């Protein structure tokens, strides 16, 4: 399994044709207490860069973009009752949705963990 990062602070794990998407620990820390996550409906098809979800903290509501194109096959229903999971475990249990990957070549432009760390350090 490989993990990629975007400069919009999403992480994406790819296993076979399924990609799991969430926001990074850095992103949740910037947002503060997360009170609501609006997830896409299963079956929704996204182009890379589409608005896919909304994460809402006490300070702001922010969009989460689809890091690659794909169709939503599953969403993290645990977030409906416990949005704070994003704060406590952003990069594991706090995942947002899973996509069926359409074009694996879209992953090529994304960062790996070391590059993302460097990117965050530069902010």
């Amino acid at each position, binding site marked *: 399994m490989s993990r990629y990062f975007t400069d919009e602070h999403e992480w994406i794990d790819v296993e076979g044709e399924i990609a799991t998407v969430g926001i990074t620990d850095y992103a949740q820390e910037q947002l503060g207490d997360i009170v*609501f996550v*609006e997830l896409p409906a299963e079956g929704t098809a996204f182009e890379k860069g589409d608005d896919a979800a909304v994460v*809402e*903290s*006490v300070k*702001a*509501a922010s*969009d989460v973009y689809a890091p690659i194109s794909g169709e939503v096959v599953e969403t993290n229903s645990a977030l409906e009752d416990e949005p704070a999971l994003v704060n406590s475990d952003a990069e594991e249990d706090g995942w947002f949705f899973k996509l069926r990957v359409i074009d694996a070549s879209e992953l090529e432009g994304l960062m790996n963990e070391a590059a993302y760390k460097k990117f965050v350090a530069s902010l």
Partner: protein
Amino acid sequence: MRYLPLTDTDRQDMLTVIGASSVDDLFVDVPAEARLPGKIAGLPDHASELAVERHMAALARKNLSAGEAPFFLGAGAYRHHVPASVDHLIQRGEFLTAYTPYQPEIAQGTLQVLFEFQTQVARLLGCDVANASMYDGSTACWEAIGMARRITKRGKAILSSGLHPHYVSVANTMAKFTGDALVHQAPTLDAAPDIDALIAGIDKDTSCVVVQYPDILGRIADLTPLADAAHAAGALLVAVVTEPVALGACRTPGHMGADIVVGEGQSIGVGLQFGGPYLGLFACKQKYVRQMPGRLCGETVDAAGKRGFVLTLSTREQHIRREKATSNICTNSGLCALAFSIHMTLLGEKGLRELAALNHALAVQAADRLARVPGVTLLNDSFFNEFTLILSKDAREVVRNLADKGVLGGVSLGRLFPDAPEIGNGLVVAVTETVTAEDIEAFAKALEEELA
């Protein structure tokens, strides 16, 4: 604030700083045809204060105002008695001068009022939560349609023929820009509201059904079957209340299954004011709260455990979320909401029920008397404080002639629905606690003369 006029030198200095040669340069982006050339015809450059006062007083004398004559106008704006204490209290500097409370820590009093307002509105409309607040009933109605679209992801709203035509008009204007499809027919002079037709119209593309309660002709329906039918098709029921005093006597739309209940709050605490500012009410079921426009005020505790109030759910508003905001409503009718809240507090639950009973009793008395006038038929078999009379001739003309006789005798359907001449003989009559037995008699007598 003192008025300090600019000198020509002041003007020139400012223009020099910004690099413009004349004031007109600042308006070059405005198309010429949208600009007013020269002066406004008939308006002098200046006049003395006394002359202006006299001129304005002369203009005002041309009006026959609500307080001067037997008054039976309603159709979305009602004359109720507002206790003098309401006006006195809202003019306290702490309330009157408070800016929209984006800075919650310094506006605790205003926030507490909004919290209490929301509580009153939610209970009045029979819903879980209410916001604080909207501009008026018509914009609140449109916001409910937009909210139903966001929730159902469908874009076709069915509007009852009994919905106030001005509310329909506002919705049509907004729908031009959002692409919502609105299905609407003008009313017919039937005693029964159009519930069956609305149910028949619901399909899989329907986002919501919008129904007014009581409706523009004063008719009252049980909304339960409509709510059930909408829900069965995955659509929402939006109920619109233009006369909230009715809810002191009638079942609330929320209790009949409406998902979103909006209304015009003018009846409580806010005068007629020549049409505004008014007060939009907006309430819904808890599960839809995140799609609600505007903001809510919540009660919480601070770090020291003391009770405090704070605006919440405003993260999706325009000032934070720009073009992706839930709606472009960016402020509220704060002072009108305060007036509503104070009046409602003075009334209390018992007072509201008594006020509603009084309105209804006087309306029944008026309807009985007016229905005895030759050439008049009463349309409604049930109503609250407003009903429709069918006259033997066009009601527009009758209303004008009644005004000449010193009676403000209702709103003609011809005026409300200029494109539906077949209902032009209809006259919508509102009767509130401000109407006396003498007023009813004067109206009946004038109507007898007019229809003779």
